[in-house]
């Protein structure tokens, strides 16, 4: 059971909430309270737009425990428009082939069950191809 950890990480997982460094203005994700650029204290919350592009990706066929039911699925490194690189599942790809540079947007989805279906449902960020207006 990971209930306290899931609870502690909810803001970053549900809504890509990170931090902005008050000294050098670098945007930080995941939040770590110390700026990876200038080493200064950085505790100011910053909500990322959720827009970005695929930096690299891979297809997961042999999924780790808790993710078996979703395999095969694509995991990507997504370069957020604000700078940071995050690792996340891609979803709702349909028939669209994934490509490096593909514009994607954040959506909040079910990530897995904590344990079995008696455990809590873990929600978090995934990315999908930007939807056409």
């Amino acid at each position, binding site marked *: 059971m990971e209930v306290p950890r899931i609870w502690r990480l909810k803001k970053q997982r549900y809504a890509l909430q990170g931090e902005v460094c008050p000294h050098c203005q670098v945007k930080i994700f995941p939040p770590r309270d110390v700026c990876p650029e200038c080493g200064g204290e950085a505790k100011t919350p910053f909500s990322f737009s959720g827009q970005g592009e695929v930096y690299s990706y891979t297809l997961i066929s042999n999924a780790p425990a808790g993710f078996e039911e*979703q395999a095969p699925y694509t995991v990507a490194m997504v370069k957020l428009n604000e700078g940071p690189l995050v690792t996340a599942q891609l979803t709702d790809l*349909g*028939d669209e082939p994934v490509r490096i540079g593909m514009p994607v947007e954040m959506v*909040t*989805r079910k990530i897995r069950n904590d344990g079995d279906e008696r455990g809590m*449902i873990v929600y978090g960020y*995934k990315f999908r191809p930007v*939807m*056409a207006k």
Partner: protein
Amino acid sequence: MKQDQQVPQPEKGKLLQPKIKVGIVGYGAYVPRYRLPAKEIGRIWGNQGGYPVKEKAVAGLDEDVITMSIEAARNALKRADISADELRAVWVGSESHPYAVKPSGTVVAEAIGAPNDIQAGDWEFACKAGTEAMVAAMGMVGSGMGDYALVAGMDTAQGKPGDALEYTAASGGAAFIIGPLNSALASIEASYSYVSDTPDFWRREYQVYPEHGQRFTGEPAYFEHVESASRTIFAETGLKAQDFAYAVFHQPNTKFPQRIGKTLGFTPEQIAPGLLAPVIGNTYSGAAMIGLTAILDIAEEGDLILMTSYGSGAGSDSFIIKARKPLAQRRAKALSTQDYIARRTQIDYATYLRYRGEIRMR
């Protein structure tokens, strides 16, 4: 004379109209990507036609009422031009809340950045849970208790394999932010609700699939309640079908809303923009509400819209909504309902079973 009899009561009829005028300040839809054609269900169960819809929307493996409500709520916030900080309620109406005990509303609220100072209980009234929450939101804002309340009607509806409802039980819905009239994209002029104990459809605790009363779901249930609610709101306001630009009803299939529309004097043109069941199926708590979002995507200033929902068990909420000037420029701030409908990946029955969790994995 008892003390409480001295409290002055305003003279009023049957309409629900708050003291402070309210309206829809933001709206957003959500339809999942996957579509299951009715003829694909028919292929499995040996039916060859006469289907109630063309196809239905199916939630993906990683979607549920909470994730879909989050996206619809985010769309509503984009159009509302308010910060999530200003919300005083986040209410989700559904008959497929992911948890039996633990509110959907708190997760949705956290994800959209709503503050801790909110009401967040879940609503349930079969297919009218969302519109029931909408009436409550009118009361909350209209009494001055809070400026803004977000309500969602959302479902990942259950249909027993092989049952008539399997063709229509779909996933999707909509969210609305109710707020004061001066910031509204559309005013809510009045509402009226009509309910009775009518056992047309139900699901007992721990049961996976609902039961229904076959043809009993028509005359004494859907038609009686939708017609009574709509006719009462007509009578109390003096309006008639010809006064409206559009009408949207709960849509368990294609025929029911078309028939009630005709009975009430509406033309097929008034009904068509909000009639989404043929292409997305019956989204239960979301059905009438997402139909309204499709109308708001095209309505012009001054257009009157009738929305009448229906929930089994049974009851109808009827609303008179009037489009306001800011609607035209604000609606482009989020994806339209038709944008979601156009995003379509067809699936077969086996994939449908997998996405619905019907395949035993261990």
